[in-house]
């Protein structure tokens, strides 16, 4: 579907296609959700198989599992403080889900569910609701003082409160769009250069030689995309931690 009559079709890779036959169609189970399940499966395998032997001196798998664990643990305790311990599994799940979504999408024929604004917005909305509920549960009515800082002159309230409110409500938007845009841009680029390889490859004798250039660009792009995959998952997790810190401490 990439080169339909000399045109570059970089967007069809994001199409949702139902899987699992009639059952999947009936419940609207697309390949996106299948990849989500795959990610959950891989995360579970990594954590369970990795820690299976409970070695005092870890092997490779266990070291990987422990590295992820300690990385996110340090992130949460560093950003939220010791009160954040109980939200650590939530942040861990977020980080791993986004990271594996980004990484699985780099494999050929695989689907990147983090390239769908609906998915990233769903995750960001989850973060938004979780942080808001945590703040309300911890501080009750005092939470609304978050939108009007203590000690500010009262006549500024009509300006400050809307601004704070808008900035609070724009969190899920920025969180979701950042991830979505990064993933889409990366995959569109990969697809475009891959199409160049195919188109140039069909140019006769000089084709294969000319096709080497976009191919090498794609090689570099894949490396860059791996970096972006980690980076965006990290950004998602650390912003979640910052929002949780605000929820726990109210500034």
């Amino acid at each position, binding site marked *: 579907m990439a080169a339909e009559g000399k045109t570059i079709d970089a967007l069809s890779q994001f199409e949702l296609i139902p899987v699992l036959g009639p059952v999947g169609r009936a419940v609207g189970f697309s390949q996106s959700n299948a990849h989500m399940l795959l990610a959950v499966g891989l995360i579970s395998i990594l954590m369970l198989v990795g820690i299976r032997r409970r070695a005092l001196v870890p092997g490779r798998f266990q070291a990987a599992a422990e590295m992820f*664990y300690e990385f996110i643990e340090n992130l949460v305790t560093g950003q939220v403080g010791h009160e954040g311990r109980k939200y650590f599994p939530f942040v861990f799940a977020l980080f791993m889900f986004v990271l594996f979504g980004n990484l699985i999408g780099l494999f050929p024929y695989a689907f990147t569910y983090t390239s769908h604004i609906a998915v990233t917005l769903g995750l960001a909305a989850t973060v938004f609701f979780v942080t808001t509920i945590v703040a309300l549960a911890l501080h009750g009515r005092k939470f609304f003082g978050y939108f009007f800082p203590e000690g500010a002159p009262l006549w500024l309230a009509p300006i400050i409160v809307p601004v704070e409110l808008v900035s609070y409500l724009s969190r899920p938007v920025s969180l979701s769009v950042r991830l979505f845009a990064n993933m889409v841009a990366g995959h569109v680029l990969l697809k475009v250069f891959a199409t160049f390889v195919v188109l140039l490859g069909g140019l006769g004798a000089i084709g294969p030689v000319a096709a080497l250039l976009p191919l090498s660009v794609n090689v570099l792009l894949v490396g860059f995309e791996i970096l972006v995959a980690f980076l965006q998952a990290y950004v998602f997790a650390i912003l979640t931690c910052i929002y949780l810190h605000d929820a726990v401490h109210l500034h």
Partner: protein
Amino acid sequence: MIRLSHRNAWRSLALAALLSGASVLAAPGALAQQVTAPHATGPVQPSGPLPGQQGESRAVQADSDRANAVREANITANEYRAAAHDAADAGGMPQLDFGNPLMISQVVWLLVIFGLLVFLCYQFLLPPVAAVLEDRRQRIAADLDAARDARAEAEAAEAGRRDSTARARAEAQASIAAALQAAQAESAARAEALAERLNRQITEAEARIGTARDAAMGALREVATDATTALVQRLSGLTDGAAVSAAVDRELAARNPRTGAA
């Protein structure tokens, strides 16, 4: 963390090359998603059951049901695909095609699957890791404590050794000093005794000399007196013993003031 050696770098480069090569293969033709079934235009009507062929007609009925189901599924799939293609042809991104029912179901499934992952993390995935890490932390702490204890013990032993060495040295010094002192005292005593003996001998000798001289002096006086008496007698015929002895005494006293009184 991750060692970046040359070999690793080449390996990752090769992996990236493999991935992008495969994505090139994926580029020209996506997977065909055709549901294999005859394209029926209308519901398949089962032919009426022939007499005496009930089972067969039931099979035919089932066949036609299956065909209908496949046809309906095909229609739905085609609708999805057509909708997606329409969206793509319109220049829109499939991600922004919110009319697609798969979009809503995708989010619902996302919440279900992500909820499952969060549940798994809270219940099964993270506690074992926490336990292992805690166990290791305790082991390391215990080992460190043991090492610290051992070091304290070694330091105490070292201090004890140093103490005992110092004590031994002090004792040795003390005994050397005592021996020296004893030797000095002994030699001093011996010297004193010797000096005393010598002094005594000197005194004795002086006394002997004194007596000898006194004896000699006494004898001298007698001789002098006798000689003087004899001389005076011969010269003057007088015998005045008292005067002569006084004169002799005077003379002797003048000659020898030490025994002047004698």
